[in-house]
């Protein structure tokens, strides 16, 4: 008799059981299972560094961040944290997401040994690359190009590096020493920095002649102007200029009411800086008002920052559009606004539509008007006939663009991510092949499903960020957020589920006893009759059933898995495994037969280091 029964295939979400997963499936699984990492533009290995922090290994945690997002101390303060919006915690826990961003800062603030520049990946190539603009995008590109073995010269117009991290973001949100330290880690890796070099179109042309490649990362420096009847523009202070002056310490004190128009980072920072410059925070009479045409939900600031703003005695008026300004005796008297209502549908350049309310005009008296409604790239720098497109490589093959300059004003983490990818592009252009690629290393952890933490850790309260009191804020530029305490860091870091651990059922061992389903804390394990996978083999949908005979699979839906390990411990057949995945930079080697093999770059570096140690 033939008792070799025909069975539905045994699906798995990795291409290999352990080792280096180089298939598309592996990256897809990683992205699905570790949503915070997938949401981070720079693909920061969040669970890896949070696990290190919870073990008190701050140096190693810093290193993970340094590798992935270049500016841990900076981003630990000002990141827009798309990761937290994606965190699995935010799906299932009313306490909110893991404080990914603040934890990054916790590690950066607690280093006992100072960090060092990252080692290069490849030998010197002798190729020369010019990077124009020393903001986060340019700095990141420079660092990565250097690690590829190219010689990098960085041209910066100002007398300091950092771009908007220094000139834009005020130091009560991001202290200067933090930025400077992290910039030094980049320049110390051997980058030729030319400060005070204003590169214009002809300058760029020269660079294109003398370098093998040129990367423009000059950000968005041109303030959008506001056409207000009644004034000629002289009375209007562009927000960016104001922030630059404030950060340079040349704004002394301000008398009279201030109106700031806009809803982005710049508008909010301008208002908060004015409040300090005018010593308005502690209740001087003059008023600082932000006026924005949509609602608070559409502002760059988050709700808790808006709360802080109000505490700092700043008024926030929303759904208002300026229609004219009134000037008397050469000085500004007031701005007239019209009120808006949200449109039911439609969108206006990606943002919801607003509808003006006829006859709703009102007047807001003020002596200063700051306009911060956005910035554009100074595209005049580009050679004749070359325009910005949505690619980093321009029509001039040697010329690359990146950061805000390419994408329009975004944020630091996008600038970093873009700086990394432009470096990959440039390297491919210079060398003619892809030398570095990300794969997923997959490791079996055979320890009864212990991720290093326990179910009780899930049930902790999220600690709040301690803030400086209003009185303290009024003096100088002291940082408002004080950083999480040791205890809060411990709690915050031990909350993370460590989603880089994947629980999977080997269908060939499963006997459908359902014991795992009985002990599970969530609807994470399903009886499934059909499982639909996409073209790379990644599960997309399934049809659930309650009837034993209809159940083809007992299936762990990773989306709902909080990595408690209970199913693994109860499974009587050992069908459930826990594997740890890690996004890993790899380089390829060809063997004699011409087959490509991928190996971990870090392993290669360790080998090199060991070799150096021996000689």
């Amino acid at each position: 008799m033939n008792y070799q029964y025909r069975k539905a295939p045994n699906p798995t979400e990795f291409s290999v059981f352990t080792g280096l997963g180089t298939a598309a499936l592996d990256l897809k699984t990683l992205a699905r299972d570790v949503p915070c990492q997938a949401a981070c533009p720079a693909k920061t290995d969040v669970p890896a560094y949070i696990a290190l922090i919870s073990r008190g290994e701050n140096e190693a945690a810093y290193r993970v961040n340094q590798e992935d997002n270049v500016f841990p101390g900076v981003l630990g303060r000002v990141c827009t944290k798309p990761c937290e919006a994606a965190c699995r915690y935010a799906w299932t826990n009313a306490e909110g997401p893991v404080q990914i961003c603040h934890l990054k800062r916790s590690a950066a603030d607690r280093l006992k040994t100072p960090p060092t520049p990252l080692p290069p990946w490849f030998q010197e190539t002798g190729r020369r690359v010019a990077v124009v603009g020393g903001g986060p995008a340019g700095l990141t590109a420079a660092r990565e190009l250097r690690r590829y073995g190219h010689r990098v010269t960085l041209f910066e117009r100002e007398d300091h590096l950092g771009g908007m991290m220094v000139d834009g973001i005020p130091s009560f949100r991001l202290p200067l020493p933090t930025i400077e330290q992290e910039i030094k880690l980049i320049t110390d890796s051997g980058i030729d920095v030319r400060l005070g070099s204003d590169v214009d179109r002809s300058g760029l042309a020269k660079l294109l002649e003398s370098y093998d490649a040129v990367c423009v990362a000059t950000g968005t420096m041109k303030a959008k102007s506001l056409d207000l009847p009644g004034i000629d523009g002289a009375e209007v202070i562009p927000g960016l200029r104001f922030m630059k002056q404030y950060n340079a310490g040349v704004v002394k004190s301000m008398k009279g009411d201030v109106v700031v128009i806009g809803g982005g980072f710049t508008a909010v920072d301008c208002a908060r800086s004015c409040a300090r410059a005018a010593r308005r925070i502690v209740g001087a009479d003059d008023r600082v008002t932000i006026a924005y045409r949509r609602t608070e939900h559409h502002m760059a600031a988050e709700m808790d920052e808006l709360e802080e703003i109000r505490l700092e005695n700043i008024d926030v008026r929303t759904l208002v559009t300026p229609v004219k300004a009134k000037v008397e005796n050469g000085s500004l008297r007031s701005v007239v606004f019209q009120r808006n209502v949200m449109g039911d549908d439609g969108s206006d350049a990606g943002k919801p539509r607003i509808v003006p309310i006829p006859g709703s005009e009102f007047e807001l008296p003020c002596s200063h008007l700051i306009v911060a409604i956005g910035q554009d790239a100074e595209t005049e720098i580009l050679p004749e006939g070359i325009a910005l497109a949505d690619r980093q490589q321009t029509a001039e093959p040697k010329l690359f663009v990146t950061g805000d300059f390419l994408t329009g004003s975004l944020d630091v983490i996008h600038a970093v991510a873009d700086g990394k990818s432009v470096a990959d592009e440039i390297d491919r252009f210079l060398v003619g092949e892809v030398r570095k690629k990300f794969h997923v290393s997959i490791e079996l952890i055979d320890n009864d499903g212990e991720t290093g933490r326990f179910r009780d850790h899930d049930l902790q309260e999220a600690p709040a960020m301690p803030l400086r009191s209003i009185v303290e804020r009024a003096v100088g530029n002291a940082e408002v957020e004080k950083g999480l305490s040791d205890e809060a860091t411990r709690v915050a870091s031990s909350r993370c589920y460590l989603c880089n651990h994947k629980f999977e059922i080997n269908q060939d061992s499963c006997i459908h006893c359902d014991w795992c389903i009985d002990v599970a804390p969530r609807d994470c394990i399903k009886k499934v009759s059909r499982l639909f996978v996409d073209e790379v083999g990644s599960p997309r949908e399934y049809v659930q059933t309650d009837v034993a005979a209809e159940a083809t699979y007992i299936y762990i839906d990773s989306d709902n898995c909080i990595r408690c390990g209970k199913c693994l411990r109860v499974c009587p057949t050992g069908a459930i495994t826990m594997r740890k995945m890690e996004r890993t930079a790899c380089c390829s080697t060809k063997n004699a037969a011409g087959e490509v093999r991928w190996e971990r770059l870090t392993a290669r570096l360790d080998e090199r280091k060991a070799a150096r140690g021996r000689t």
Partner: protein
Amino acid sequence: MQRRLQFLRRSEDEDIKDAGLVLDFDEMARKGVMSKEEKNVAKWYGIYASRQPGNHMARIVIPGGVLTSTQARNIAKVSEKFAMGKLNITTRTSIQLHWLKLGSLADIMRALADEGSTTRHGCGDVTRNVTACPLAETCRYRRFNVLPFAQRTARRLGDSHDLDNLPRKFKISYSGCGAGCAQPFINCVGAIAVGGREGSEEPRGFKVVIGGGMGATPFIAKELFSFVPAERMVDLTRAIALLFRDHGDRFNRSKARLKYVVERYGIERCREIVIENLRAEGVSTEGFVVEGFREADASYPDRPLAEEDTVGTDGSVTLRIMVPKGEMGHRQLKRVAELSEIYGDQRVRTTNRQNLELHGIPKENAEEVKREIRKIGLGTTGFYGLRDIVPCVGTTYCPKAVSETRALYDLLQPLVAQPKYAGIEKAAVINITGCPNSCSPYRIADIGFRGSRIREELGSTEGYEVTLGGTPERLGEVFGEFKRDDCPGVVEKILDTFIALRSEAESLSDCVLRVGAEPFKKAVYE
């Protein structure tokens, strides 16, 4: 308030146990519900969930498997009143009542207590029912009567409140000789009587093995002492329980049993700890022999339980009563109790093959009693043989079950009853268990079945993992996985092959040990 995170490496059950192990069943009856915590603690009272929602199971503890006829009658009465008249004998000589309603649990316990029966410690992380080989008192192979030891151990450990919260269940069995009819090698503690036969000068004692157990990962127990003086045997069980209490895993309940302590520590370290525990309680280890104790006459039979109508040391007959599937009705138990009063020693014994026994029947009454037994529908032949199939309750009652073990029982009975197997009737036993817990210890049967579901191209169907070649001291090897309806065909092929290959009177397991599983696989798969 932030959560207390002191004892993280513990299962949730440990917190529940810490909160106390006493319940008020009358209050639960009044509320009409059992909380999760109460359900957990109810196990200490022998109360467990049943597959049918709203119903409960109670496990009556029967140390050594001996009930007085009064107790048996009382249990039958309780069953009639509260359990739809059904009774299930278990493989550890307890009796289970199913179909119990929450509101009557307290009354059931009180009614059982009327005649000195209890469900206390029927389940839970405690010393479970202490078993003894069924013929302990009168077996002609026995070294000495181990029943009193089983009963004293049950009393002593049950009364030790410092042993109320063990990491998991703790199982002890006593066998009267090396034949090990009480399955010493699959218990946490297996005590095997050595030396000291009636009239001999040899000292009486036990060989002690620990760390056996079935469940998802079966272990055969390892020898702790090759000789322990009989008078300190009960103290030793306590010292072993302390080893378990203090060193068992309280985080992962599936790896909590003593077998894992022995696996992790090794038998030497376990022995050291046990000796320390004995000393700490002032028990001398003088006379303990670690290895190499030899009995003057070390002989014992191979499958003594296969013998029918055995005659005991007192000249009376032991009659076995075959209870199909281990389940009977209250009238049947009542009649058996009556028969023990009329003809026997006023006791009813439960066996680990889910059958009953009557002891002390005068030879001349044996046939008559058998007729009486057959009149109530129970069997009187086929013990410890092909027809003595032991299924656990499976999906009939058990919430953990994957398969309908009793359906397979019904499929196999007509097959094994065929005349062609008369010659090998006593050469193989079959156990069927509905899930890896192995309530019917399938790995120690000649042919074992463990329920599973087999994936199909769409959906799944009931099936069994089949093991071959187990004996009480040796685990059967996995033979294959088959859909339920294919199982009779597989058994037939295995038995036919056995007949063809059998040498002299060997058992199926010995045959498999001798020739390997290959010829059987060939027969089945070709």
